[in-house]
């Protein structure tokens, strides 16, 4: 099911890309802020700033796309929620389609 427009990552404005990276990072299991940053740096080559990371976490949590777990040693891990999985699937599907079109046009150009 494709999420409604109001439930899409694009609504997060400048936080949509960091939010996508967080969802991808949490797709293989819960992580706290520091582990997410390391993971995102490994995936994208760029480390999100602390203000940006927590701006995105706040929005994702408010929308119920990620859930906070009990804190361990002051660090609070987050896990991907069911709604977050749907949003992530839809976004990756959208990106796949954009990539396909781009590659087709490049090949024919």
């Amino acid at each position, binding site marked *: 099911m494709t999420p409604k427009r109001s439930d899409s990552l694009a609504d997060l404005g400048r936080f949509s890309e960091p939010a996508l990276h967080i969802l991808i990072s949490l797709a293989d299991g819960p992580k*706290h802020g520091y582990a997410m940053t390391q993971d995102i740096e490994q995936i994208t080559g760029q480390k999100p700033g602390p*203000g*940006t990371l927590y701006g995105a976490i706040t929005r994702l949590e408010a929308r119920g796309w990620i859930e906070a777990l009990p804190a361990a040693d*002051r*660090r*609070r891990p987050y896990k991907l929620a069911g709604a977050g999985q749907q949003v992530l699937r839809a976004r990756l599907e959208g990106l796949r389609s954009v990539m396909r079109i781009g590659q087709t046009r490049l090949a024919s150009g």
Partner: protein
Amino acid sequence: MTARQLLWLYPRGWRERYAEEFVAFLGDRQLGVGEWIDIVSGAVDARLSPEVRRATARAGSQGGEETMSVLQALKRRECGESTASIGESLVGAAVIIFGTMACVAAGNWLTGLGQAGWGELLQTSGWLFLFVLVANTVFLKGQSWRVRALFVGGQFVVLLLLLWPR
């Protein structure tokens, strides 16, 4: 400057929900310029974004007991509530609107007196100074004098340096 020091730029609800893990995430090390700018811009976003304000106000009221320390409670008693009332926000808006009109009129008057530089400054940028001034009573309500001085004083200095008629 450390994360713990910059944390006070964030609204209270946000701090109650995220402060502990944010400090644990960054530790007490000195921050780089890039991180410093990113945190300040995150604090501005947390104060101005209705979505973040709503979410953290709710989280603060639900889960605040976990992180509400005696110090924070004392600070609240000392500074009062940190959210401006509708009345205070409307007064702030009126100050900006009517103040801008007054600035434009004063700018015209100064231009007529041959002070074109000052006249232009008032006409084009008067509202910016008013906005910063009003921020002190609306967005920064309940904050410590240090935070107010940084936001208001710092922005006034920057605006004056940028806009001073030459």
